[in-house]
């Protein structure tokens, strides 16, 4: 396998106003690919979001509990409303996750830094979801923290 020598850029991304609305209206955030290792970005971001009052739903087929929350093997296993699907997985996993996000009625798909999948983003937007690509949800929340929870 050879490493690609380019990284995709988001061709269309949520506007700053949309990002603010996503964060201000969300209550539950499914964190896909959440690690149980405190030094990992996914753990730090999820812990931050939890401290800021969001309900975290961890998604990871290899774990049972993280940050005091039950871990689900996939988004389809979650039996409560999810507002944001926050993705910490490789770009090639995004299309399948978007399918699941649409299926469970999520309102937004959020891809963390460096994660971009324009075709999957189109599909999500077509189903009425908001899409943020290649942004850290913690960084954006901190930036907007005067106007969101």
């Amino acid at each position: 396998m050879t490493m690609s020598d380019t990284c995709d850029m988001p061709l269309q991304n949520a506007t700053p106003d949309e990002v603010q609305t996503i964060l201000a209206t969300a209550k539950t955030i499914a964190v896909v690919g959440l690690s149980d290792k405190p030094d990992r970005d996914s753990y730090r971001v999820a812990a931050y979001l939890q401290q800021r009052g969001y309900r975290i739903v961890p998604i990871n087929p290899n774990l049972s509990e993280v940050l005091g929350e039950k871990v689900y093997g996939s988004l389809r296993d979650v039996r409560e409303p999810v507002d944001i699907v926050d993705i910490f997985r490789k770009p090639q996993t995004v299309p399948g996750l978007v399918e699941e996000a649409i299926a469970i009625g999520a309102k937004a798909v959020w891809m963390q830094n460096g994660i971009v999948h324009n075709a999957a983003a189109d599909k999500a937007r077509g189903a009425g979801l908001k899409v943020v690509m290649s942004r850290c949800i913690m960084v954006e929340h901190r930036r907007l923290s005067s106007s969101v929870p």
Partner: protein
Amino acid sequence: MKLKLSQQNMKDIVELSERNFDAQVLNAASPVLVDFWAPWCGPCKMQLPILEAVAGRMSGQAVVAKVNVDDAPNLAGRYGITSIPTLLLFKGGKVARQFVGLQMESALVAALEATK
């Protein structure tokens, strides 16, 4: 010594923003090679030391600059950047060459030499 050289070359890469781009690039007297990059992009990180070497070799003849696309989405949009690293070579305020993906030092120096 190696570190000192590296730090010296680092100074040769101009950091651009949406605020200073037009003044530094479009109104520049010499050719400007602009690297559109992001800190999360692996190939972009590999491109950076190559650009430092290019900047060192072309010092006084051309400007080497970089734009963090996360901080400057409007610039990325203006130039239709869809993947990074993308390098644009400007001469007289216009794009003379475009390179998409990781580029070798020799290719970039040759392009700058040809644009002088």
